[in-house]
């Protein structure tokens, strides 16, 4: 019993330097998982970019439609504002009746406008008590033309009690002014006024009215003045002549402004007109790989393969950011087909016997063969063997039926593409680039022997979501303003359609998309 020891010691000693090299497959798995993670990390980045782009696009469209709406509604008001504003500065310089202006803006009524203008003059000069003196002072405080008006009113005051009252009792002014206008306005002043009115093609009646009130206030006193004083009459004539010339200028500017506005509105309408477009399309698509290799199993790397021509159809909506650049997206259904030739198809029972021949590798099935480095990527109850390698195999196996394996994949494609317009004529040319997301919705493998086609399973290495980089040229023929015929050869390089492909399998497809676009 001398060599008895505690069980802990026994284990400790034995396991002290215990090391064991794990199977290589462990590292292979780890590596695959790490790569998967890296890929996953890459995809979210482009998703992020895509979402940012989509968001921008959305913002653009929303803000654009908002602004369009806004400018449409605001443009007419703009013209009014412009036209009402423009005569005011002219009046300022010509007849500095600054006093009347604010009141005109505030009041719609002709008469009250005049009344309050008088009131304002007095208020502005801080002497509201004695109407006579204040009116004098007030008007004297202003420049020449108002002086003429002032002089006129002063003279009216001195001669007629009516006009005296006009200033003394501002509230009665309305009637008097109207009267005096009626009496006198048929003279030179009002003629002038009417001429001006005709020239001034103002769109708004209110501003027109306001404008005429201003003229009235100016012209009525000057008209009375013409009656009372000859010398001053000359002056007022001069002033009214000046007014005339200025009015002409003014109307010109107004007309110009209106024309400008109209032009602007037209432009906006034009550009807005064709921004959106919807294009249903259909395309024959040809699927193939850039490198040698097989998406099914490495044993088929050297087999003959051929792509299939299938159809893709869908609908695109595009939005023109400007005259040169169009963004578009849509939804397409894509079917892709790919044939691998010279494949022997066995059912599962035979597969196990075949498995024992080392020359034939990678027999597939639901049971994946653990120690085989080249697993195939399909889940099926039959086994596939490349006949290329079968040459070495015993004859009994070679008697298996020779077939083509047809891989059929269906996707829902959602592209985000930019179109840069190179030529914008009747026959247009544009360059297209972008990305597509693919969502797998059909995944089948068929074996084809002498016209018989049997479903043998599905590929397990096709990703549910994959992407492609798209390039292409677009030709369009404008049939009418609204319709055009599109013809777009596209090359789509698929990025992660398959998880584990053997060899250098780089799938892509070419599609020639044709469709009729409707612009609105």
């Amino acid at each position: 019993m001398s060599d008895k020891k505690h069980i802990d010691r026994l284990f400790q000693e034995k396991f002290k330097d215990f090391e064991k090299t794990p199977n290589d497959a462990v590292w292979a798995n780890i590596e695959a998982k790490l790569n998967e993670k890296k890929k996953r990390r890459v995809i979210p980045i482009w998703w992020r970019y895509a979402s940012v782009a989509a968001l921008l696009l959305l913002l653009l469209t929303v803000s654009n439609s908002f602004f369009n709406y806004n400018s449409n509604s605001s443009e007419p008001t703009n013209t009014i504002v412009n036209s009402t504003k423009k005569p005011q500065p002219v009046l300022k310089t010509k007849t500095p009746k600054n006093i009347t202006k604010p009141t005109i803006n505030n009041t719609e009524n002709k008469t009250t406008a005049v009344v309050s203008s008088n009131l304002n003059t007095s208020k502005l000069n801080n002497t509201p008590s004695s109407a006579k003196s204040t009116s004098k002072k007030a008007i004297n405080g202003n420049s020449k033309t108002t002086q003429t008006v002032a002089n006129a009113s002063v003279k009216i005051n001195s001669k007629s009690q009516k006009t005296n009252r006009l200033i003394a009792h501002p509230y009665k002014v309305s009637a008097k002014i109207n009267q005096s206008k009626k009496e006198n306005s048929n003279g030179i002043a009002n003629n002038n006024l009417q001429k001006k009115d005709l020239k001034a093609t103002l769109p708004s009646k209110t501003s027109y009215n306001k404008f005429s009130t201003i003229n009235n206030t100016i012209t009525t006193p000057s008209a009375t003045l013409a009656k009372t004083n000859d010398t001053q009459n000359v002056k007022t004539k001069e002033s009214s002549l000046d007014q005339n010339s200025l009015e002409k200028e003014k109307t010109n500017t107004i007309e110009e402004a209106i024309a400008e506005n109209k032009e602007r509105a037209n432009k906006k309408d034009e550009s807005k007109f064709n921004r959106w477009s919807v294009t249903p399309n259909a395309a024959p698509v040809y699927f193939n790989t850039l490198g040698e290799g097989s998406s099914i199993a490495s044993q088929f790397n050297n087999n003959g393969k051929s792509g299939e021509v299938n159809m893709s159809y869908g609908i695109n909506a595009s939005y023109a950011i400007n005259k040169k650049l169009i963004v578009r997206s849509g939804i397409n259904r894509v079917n892709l087909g790919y044939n691998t030739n010279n494949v022997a198809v066995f059912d599962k029972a035979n597969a196990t016997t075949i498995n024992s021949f080392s020359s034939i590798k990678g027999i597939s099935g639901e049971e994946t063969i653990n120690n085989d480095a080249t697993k195939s990527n399909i889940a099926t109850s039959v086994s596939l063997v490349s006949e290329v390698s079968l040459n070495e195999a015993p004859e009994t196996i070679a008697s298996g039926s020779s077939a083509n394996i047809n891989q059929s994949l269906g996707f829902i494609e959602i592209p985000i593409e930019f179109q840069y317009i190179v030529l914008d004529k009747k026959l247009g040319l544009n360059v297209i680039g972008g990305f597509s997301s693919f969502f797998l919705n059909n995944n089948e493998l068929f074996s084809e022997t002498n016209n018989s086609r049997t479903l043998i399973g599905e590929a397990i290495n096709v990703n549910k979501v994959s992407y492609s980089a798209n390039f292409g040229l677009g030709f369009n023929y404008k049939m009418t303003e609204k319709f055009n015929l599109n013809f777009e050869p596209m090359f789509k390089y698929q990025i992660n359609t398959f998880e584990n492909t053997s060899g250098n399998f780089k799938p892509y497809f070419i599609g020639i998309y044709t469709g009729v676009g409707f612009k609105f």
Partner: protein
Amino acid sequence: MSLNQLIENCKNNNTKAQGELYKLFSSKLFSTCLKYSRNYAEAEDNLQDAFLTIFNKIGQYKNKGSFEGWLKRVTVNTVLQRYRKEKVFDIINENTIEDIVEVDIEEDSLSIDYLLNIIQELPDRYRLVFNLYVLDDYSHKDIAEMLNINIGTSKSNLARARQILKQTIENYKVAQSAQSL
């Protein structure tokens, strides 16, 4: 390339460096996985998970303490996580068993494979406690925290593990001598 450089490269997700690191430490960590797992296949799974965690969290290693120690801790934690999750601990009278039975054993030429095998065949909790306490020098207090059990439970689990191992070895010896007769 120095180990520190290698660690830095691994932090940058350099695939080559990750492969190097794996080459350097996989044997050691795999032995840990083997001891703590139920069988070879699960040990492989655990090693894979451990390395994925290591590459994922290598940024958290701040060059404090031995890198190998850190790797081992991550590995042990990975394994514990799996068996903690599975909660299939075989618990029988665990608080009543005291370490009173003699657990000394005659040293014989027992192969390491055999010893590994009988460790793996221990019920999960016993295996974990035995490994942590006997082979990896954790205290009962640490073990209690790591496995979320009482210190007493840890102690009795250990005693039970020793007894089972001793019994198994003795039975094995008897069988062997019977065979050789």
